[in-house]
């Protein structure tokens, strides 16, 4: 019997997150010959999501639908996933390094007394050793890490491992498993949606980030408009968050989020070392700042020295035109 690698899928508003597909690709990098078994938890039927996982490379998917799995809790999902691990006896587990991934995977690793390599951005085979690369010191350095004993267990950072092409001619078995979920110790009374009127910052392909130079909460408006035409998300520097221009959940940097989009547009951000740690591994960086000496220009691929309130609306218009003519 061939080895198995579990990929724990994750959805948002009933749609699988991209990082799930990236995790499938990661599983194949860990072991190209293994059977990739998708795992999905939720309340409603998970069949269509399971099919999507198969189109993106999973060989089989196990789903658990249960009232108590409507919203993620470590207790609920923990019980479901541990039951599947027990059934499948996999040689590896991969999941996205997301809010849910970060919360769930250490619990599972601890329960099984195994290692876990979090926030992986690259996976390579050196001989027959799987080597995981992950940023440390918020991307100021990287480490290569291996599992020395037990299951291979890793979480992958969104946007770093290329998912496989969707192939809807692929087919695979979808099995619904019944798991007894005992009482949950946490009750989620309410979820206040603040972040959903845009693209998720950690998964966004384009990030438009504002700093102190944006001057006010009102000043972020043009940034939102630009992010909108680019299909991207808005982020901020610590300075902008401290000054109450926006919520801390938007903060990018050594404290705050670390992002690696294809395109990062830094607007009115001076480029303190703590901020650079959170974004300097983005693929293309554009800096717009009044101060030609701003440190951000040292990491930017392209820079415009000018007043952001003049530049951003023109840029938004130009990109709109481009999209219309495309």
């Amino acid at each position: 019997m061939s080895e198995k690698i579990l990929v724990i899928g994750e959805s948002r508003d009933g749609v699988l997150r991209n990082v799930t597909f990236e995790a499938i690709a990661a599983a194949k990098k860990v072991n190209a010959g293994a059977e990739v078994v998708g795992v999905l938890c939720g309340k409603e039927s998970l069949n269509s999501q399971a099919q999507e996982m198969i189109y993106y490379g999973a060989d089989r998917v196990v789903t658990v639908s249960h009232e108590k799995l409507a919203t993620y809790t470590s207790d609920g999902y923990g019980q479901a996933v541990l039951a599947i691990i027990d059934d499948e006896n996999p040689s590896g587990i991969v999941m996205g390094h997301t809010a849910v991934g970060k919360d769930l995977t250490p619990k599972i690793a601890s329960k099984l007394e195994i290692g876990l390599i979090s926030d992986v951005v690259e996976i390579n085979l050196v001989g027959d050793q799987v080597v995981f690369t992950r940023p440390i010191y918020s991307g100021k350095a990287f480490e290569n890490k291996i599992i020395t004993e037990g299951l291979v267990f890793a979480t992958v950072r969104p946007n770093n491992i290329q998912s496989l092409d969707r192939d809807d001619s692929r087919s695979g078995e979808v099995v619904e498993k019944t798991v007894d979920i005992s009482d949950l110790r946490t009750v989620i009374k309410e979820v206040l949606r603040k972040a959903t009127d845009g693209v998720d910052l950690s998964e966004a392909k384009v990030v438009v980030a504002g700093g102190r130079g944006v001057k006010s909460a009102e000043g972020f408006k043009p940034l939102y408009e630009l992010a909108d035409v680019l299909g991207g998300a808005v982020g901020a520097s610590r300075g902008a968050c401290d000054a109450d221009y926006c919520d801390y959940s938007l903060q990018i940097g050594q404290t705050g989020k670390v992002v690696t989009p294809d395109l990062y547009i830094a607007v009115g951000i001076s480029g303190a070392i703590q901020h650079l740690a959170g974004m300097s591994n983005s693929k293309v960086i554009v800096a717009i700042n009044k101060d030609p000496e701003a440190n951000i220009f040292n990491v930017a691929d392209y820079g415009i020295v000018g007043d952001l309130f003049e530049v951003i609306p023109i840029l938004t218009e130009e990109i709109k035109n481009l999209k219309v003519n495309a």
Partner: protein
Amino acid sequence: MNIYVLLKKTFDTEEKIVVSDGRIEDDGAEFIINPYDEYAVEEAIKQRDEHGGEVSVVTIGDEDSEKQLRTALAMGADKAVLINIEETQEEGDQFTTTKILEAFFEDKEVDLILAGNVAIDEASGQVGPRLAERLGINYVTTITNLEIDGDTAKIDKDVEGDVEKIETSLPLLVTCQQGLNEPRYPSLPGIMKAKKKPLEELEIDDLDLDEDELEPKTKTVDIFLPPEKEAGRVLEGEIDAQVKELVSLLRNEAKVL
């Protein structure tokens, strides 16, 4: 309430990272309390002031870790514990850190454990949830508000920008997210008092642990710096023309539009 804080020292966020021989050079580096752990210390003090009890700050480290523990005591924590692993043979990982903490907590009565949601150096974010699992207590990560009433805890949890309103019960482990509070600076009287507060030092031998239980499950085989970015191009000319050029470069050269 018996409140514990898990604390780690980290490089100051201003520090540049120097790598030699596949290791991070820490000679002469400034160390601070991990910024997320500072929120944990602050929250512990606030909860104690409201509900009574005692705040103990626990770190695993070396002799130099005393500095960060004294800072936490100066902020207002009551006691500190340094688990000194300088003599320990093997380089640990999150599994071993958890093992050590599990052994430490074995004979402790715990109501609340607070930790940072992540350390800004290794950034695994594993130890809090791992420890809660070993201790058989509940945990909530990335909290931005905590209200305790008897055995009940009402929590705001940050989930990638959304806020979950959670109800749970003690004993509990939480990891702290930015926005939870504004950590205080130690006052001068606080600093003076901190010098006299109890700081207990333990070694692995003092805990009910064998070194062979501390065999890590993962290993770092190399550390390296990212490739230096070449300085980019600052555009010139009228703003209109610059923006047009930028869009064209993003489309045709960088191919991101």
